[in-house]
């Protein structure tokens, strides 16, 4: 057996054995991985978790500084001269920041932030595209013990305003350094909506109520470097995801766990070996083509490469055609990996097919996350963007997980087209039926976890009850995800389905699982399923409710009102299901899965008399739905 210090094996059999061992000795595995960081105070216990509460704590009593780990510790050696960030701007020109230059910038900004009264524990919102300054902001925040809140650049302004309010931010950084007009416009719009936090504009214009970046930096005092040692569980950042409507849901990331897992996973994903970290070698470069505000962007796009002393490559997203941009990047960096989404990958392969790449270079590794990587895309991308399809890997990561938990790896034995992959060491994903039993191989069920991992979210910012409702209720004592997967006999996980609908209501998207969680938590509800259906007025929600055994006799109208009130309070008025069906039981398959497709047909009135119900264990459940009043 390999020791946990070594790189995980690259053949399937050995890897599975290594992985099993790491799960059996979870504490030991993650204690060894913690050596990847410099600690100011050593931690006492590795982990203490209890999903019943739920309570998760890693590396307790340890103290560290994330920025120091990503920057300062590289300054002593040759890495200091290496590029930390390479940025391809809209004009097709590269800007380079070495580790020492980046360090200087971070110091300057942190000085400026201190002089603006920023102190450890405050939140700053970063509404920035993938630009080097966004990284500078993150590092500066981490240096000062501020909690930064990256917000995806695609979010609309009013949602950002709500996030700013919800997390109680003291400063909001907006815009892009390349001076694009629409960013300036955003600053203007946002400044109208906000009252309180300092608004920093990274654009060129100087809208009223905002300070420009230059003004901010000018105010930097002559103070000494102020590096704050924070506790392991100190919130490093808050990642907002999920619905773009209602009360935003921000996953809180703990500093130590997030850093340890980002560093560990980076090595697994990008197959770092001892040679590739040799200073003499050309450094491995990582192109982050996902939004840095996503969990993948944070963990594997920014922190992973910086902790490893690698080069982070960013590119502006406009002007150049996809293929030309790839040509520029691959031409300049012969050893380049990329972190991207399947959608982006599909665009690239389509574009490259039309305009073949001029360079002979290809990505060392193409890592896909944030969507379903189909077998055909896997093959196509492997052919046109990498040297072989096994170099295209798939990552399972969500904001709540904080890091990749399941992935394929860039070895033929550890890669299968379309598979989610195998679990990373130290993490034990399981497949559960709705009844909470473990599924046999090849059988589809919920992806869930019985034990925590270092990077997992520590809470929903400001909404402790939602934290429990969303993740720990469906299967007792387990962290559940909305994903349905199967595990094959080799040990690979395959994505099958999302156990929720994403519904667009009034132009904004909403996950049905959020509404389901609220309904489920209501004391009078035994079971709830929410589906999205289209109606002439657009998409709407329909809820199917099985009342708790004691509530059968209570008037349905009062319960309907109570449920509506609960949803309105937690999420918002628009999320109240327009149709509520009450039933004795929900239709289930013989293995206990809620038949959501059937429910959707019920709600949209498409259920036909000669429906094939062969897979439904309790077809009589369908008789129980009495027709609701259409709201």
């Amino acid at each position: 057996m390999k020791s946990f210090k070594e790189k995980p094996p690259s053949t399937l059999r050995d890897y599975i054995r290594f992985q099993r061992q790491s799960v059996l000795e979870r504490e030991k595995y993650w204690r060894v991985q913690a050596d990847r960081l410099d600690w100011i105070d050593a931690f006492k216990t590795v982990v203490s978790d209890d999903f019943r509460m739920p309570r998760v704590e890693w590396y307790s009593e340890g103290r560290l500084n994330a920025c120091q780990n990503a920057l300062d510790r590289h300054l002593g050696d040759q890495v200091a001269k290496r590029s930390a960030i390479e940025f391809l701007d809209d004009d097709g020109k590269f800007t380079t920041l070495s580790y020492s230059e980046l360090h200087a910038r971070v110091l300057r900004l942190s000085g400026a932030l201190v002089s603006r009264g920023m102190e450890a524990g405050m939140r700053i919102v970063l509404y920035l595209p993938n630009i080097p300054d966004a990284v500078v902001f993150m590092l500066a925040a981490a240096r000062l013990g501020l909690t930064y809140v990256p917000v995806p650049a695609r979010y609309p302004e009013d949602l950002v305003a709500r996030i700013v309010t919800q997390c109680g931010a003291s400063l909001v950084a907006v815009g892009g350094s390349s001076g694009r007009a629409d960013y300036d416009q955003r600053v203007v719009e946002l400044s109208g909506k906000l009252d309180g936090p300092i608004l920093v504009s990274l654009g060129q214009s100087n809208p009223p109520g905002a300070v420009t970046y230059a003004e901010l930096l000018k105010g930097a005092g002559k103070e000494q470097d102020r590096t704050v040692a924070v506790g392991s569980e100190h919130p490093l950042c808050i990642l907002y995801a999920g619905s773009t409507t209602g009360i935003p849901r921000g996953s809180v990331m703990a500093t130590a766990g997030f850093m340890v897992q980002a560093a560990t996973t980076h090595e697994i994903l990008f197959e770092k070996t001892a040679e590739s970290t040799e200073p003499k070698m050309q450094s491995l470069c990582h192109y982050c083509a996902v939004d840095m505000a996503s969990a993948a962007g944070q963990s594997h796009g920014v922190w992973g490469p910086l902790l490893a002393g690698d080069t982070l490559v960013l590119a502006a997203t406009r002007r150049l055609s996809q293929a030309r941009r790839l040509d520029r990047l691959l031409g300049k960096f012969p050893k380049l990996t990329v972190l991207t989404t399947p959608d982006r990958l599909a665009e690239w392969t389509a574009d490259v097919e039309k305009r073949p790449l001029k360079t002979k270079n290809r990505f060392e590794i193409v890592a896909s996350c944030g969507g379903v990587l189909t077998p055909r895309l896997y093959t196509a991308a492997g052919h046109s963007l990498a040297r072989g399809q096994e170099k295209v890997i798939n990552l399972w990561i969500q904001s709540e997980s904080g890091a990749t938990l399941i992935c394929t790896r860039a070895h033929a034995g550890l890669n299968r087209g379309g598979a989610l992959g195998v679990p990373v060491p130290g993490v034990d994903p399981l497949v559960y039926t709705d009844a909470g039993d473990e599924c046999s191989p090849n059988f589809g069920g919920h992806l869930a976890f019985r034990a925590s991992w270092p990077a997992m979210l520590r809470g929903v910012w400001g909404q402790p009850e939602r934290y429990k409702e969303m993740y720990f209720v469906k299967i007792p004592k387990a962290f559940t995800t909305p994903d349905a997967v199967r595990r094959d006999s080799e040990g690979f996980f395959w994505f099958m389905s999302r156990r929720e609908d994403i519904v667009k209501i009034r132009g904004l998207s909403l996950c049905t699982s959020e509404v389901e969680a609220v309904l489920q938590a209501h004391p009078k509800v035994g079971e709830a399923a929410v589906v999205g259906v289209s109606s002439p007025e657009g998409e709407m929600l329909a809820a199917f409710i099985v009342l708790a055994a004691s509530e059968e006799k209570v008037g349905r109208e009062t319960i309907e009102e109570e449920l509506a009130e609960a949803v309105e309070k937690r999420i918002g008025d628009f999320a109240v299901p327009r149709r509520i069906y009450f039933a004795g039981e929900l239709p289930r398959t013989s293995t206990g899965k809620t038949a959501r497709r059937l429910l959707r047909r019920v709600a949209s009135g498409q259920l036909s008399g000669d429906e094939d119900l062969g897979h439904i264990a309790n077809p009589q459940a369908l008789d129980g739905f009495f027709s609701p009043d259409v709201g």
Partner: protein
Amino acid sequence: MWGDLVGARNDVIEAISEIAKSRASLLAFSGQLASAGDAWLQEVVDRTAGADNFGVTSALSELTAVVNALTPQVGRQEINRLLGRALGLGVKIERQADGASRLLGRLLGARLADQAREAGVNLLVLNPGQSSTRVCWIAGTQIRNRDRVANQPGLPDTAEMRASGVFKLMQRWGLDRSAVAGVTTRSGYLKPVPPGSYRVVPQMAADLTGTRGRPGDELSIPLALTVAEACGGDSGALVVVSDPLSSDELDITERLTGIAGIRRTGQAAHFLNHKAAWRLIASWLKQEPKNLDAVTAHLGSAGSIARHRDGRIQNLIDTFSGIPSPNHCGTIPVAPLLSALMSNDLNVKELQETVYSRGGLLSLAGTDDFRALIGFRRHGANRLQREKVDILLDFFAHRIAIAIAELASVGGPVGVITISGGLTQLEELAGLVEASLAIGPPLVWMGGSLADEAMAAGLVQSFHRPETIKDYVAERDALAKRRLQEDELLDVIIFERPLLYKKPGEPVTSAVELVDAARIAVHGRTPPVIGMVGADNEEALLAAKRANKEGRYKIAKFQLVGDSVAINEMAYEFDLMIDDDNYSIVDTDTPVTEAIRQLEAGRADILMKGNVKTEELLHGVFRYLKKSGQLQPGQLLSHVVVMDLPRMSKLLMITDAAVNPYPDEAKKVQIIENALRVARCLDILRPQVAVISAIEAVNVGIESSIEAERIASHFEDRDDCVVEGPLSFDVAVDPAIAEEKHYQGRIRGTADILIMPDIDAANVLYKTLTVESGATAAGVILCGDLPIVLTSRGDSPDSKLVSIALAVKIFIDMHEKGKKKTTQT
């Protein structure tokens, strides 16, 4: 080489002649043994009659010596016979002499017997019958006294009433109540438990059922408790029951009957007798009981025969499961019984009486008393009556002998057969039974019931070895649990739907048979792979799931060709196991092209339409078949639907309701050829093809009638089919109408295939039949040798399954035929 063979042959001949020589001398000795043995046994009987203890002891030691000498020689008929008789005599003598204390000693084992004899404890055996109670007083290991207490006339029959009679008897015997340390009795029918001795507990009274067992059984436990309460000084007397009537050790295999819902139990009324007889003989043969495999029969007013193996009664035949008795019918052949019930010659109430009390000899001869029957035969019967009595006696003897032989024949050799109970007193019948069982292990006649002795032994053992007393509730629940586990195994579903055997080559006549035919065709070969084109289709996926329900009996493997994201999502909700064997996904955004690529590569055998347009699929397939030369010139794609109509006893095929809208004459001929090929796959030997029009005579005003005649003429010379037209639909499918209309053609209501004038007519007929008459329809498009499964949304789930089965059958038949052709050339 030759030398060796000759040597071997000489050895054989020499061995045979030696055997012949020794057989001759053996025969002489056998005769001697038989006659000398009988004489000696008679002499022992005479000697022991009225003999004192010394005389009995010496006779017994003589018997023991002979038994010991015979035991190793068991196998030859005359030795077995003599051994059986010696044992029977030994048992008889021990039972009668010295209060049966030797017999009890054998049941208890030497050490326990010595201890009990020395302690000399007083115990009571209470055996309540219908109108009296038999009481046995055991002192030590001896039956000190036994008597019968008649119920007091006029008083209600209660435990107290019977107890007072018992107390009076004890007084008469001079047995003080306080001197009685233990009481035992018959158990009555409790819940099933393993045999053994049980402390009497209140739960037993609650579990007692009155449906089986003897009269008086329901009083036995209350009586024993009442008596015991008054006995044994302060702590009361010990009350146990041994080897209850409800004892059950039946082997799981023996619990089955020929009907899934009906199971046997191993309960019989005679466990005491079976266990006692077996233990006694084992003791005589100086064997551990569990090493003696035996068959013990107890034949009284009811009867049972038990097979002892590995110390357990693993199988058992009683009057409900085999042998007839004076008033039980035993097994009755089911078919005549059923017709008697159906023709009202017998009703259920009468049947119940026959089974429980009025069957057997009573039903056959009008008496339940063999003695009366045999007596009547001797005095008073006429010739015919005598003949019938002889037949009846033979019948009973045969049934008993057959049942004994049946139990002895399975599960290894049997060391001994014993018969106890009332039958042993009926010499004529006993002789017939013995004659019927002429060969086999030693047969021991044990005399009447051993129940009292067995109960006494059980009580003595319980008293001196209290640790052997079992806990009724625990044993009952444990056995119930084990039986439940067994039931789970026996309830395991093997085939959810009956899979019926059909002789190869017989025509398929129903949808169910079609599915079976496909399953049988698949049997022993790899199931064909169906490429589902556009598998992101709920209907098609559910049909595929149905086709391989839970993977138990596969008729096909499925390749799900289409968008993997959508397919996965549906597969999840439908519990479809994507195992890359029975179901695998081929991810593509061009399902038709990809499916044809799979065909070309030999990875798919059959196509099934999912979420793609029919024309798109057919165009793709057509191009592929032409390109690969699999389509002969002129051959076309056509749709055939095979219908199972509720009122028809065979399948009806209709074509073409889907692919060729308005085929001309030449195309129709090709459509017929395709339909004929499907008919051949259904093993329809000489398919009758009706070319349908509105009328059955050519009429110039009706275009289709003219065309029909011309089409039929194309097939005039063919002897592999009958093609006739024009025919109207009713004449083609209804023989009665054909006769009524005096139709003189060859197809008079017997058509297998209907060729419809155009797609409109065909489709209307097909839909009318499925919607209005609940027909099951299987649709397939035939393209050369390639079947394409085509189901429509309106089809019932069954129809979709049958469609898949049809395509599988067609594929395998054509494929096998193709193979044969190749091997011939």
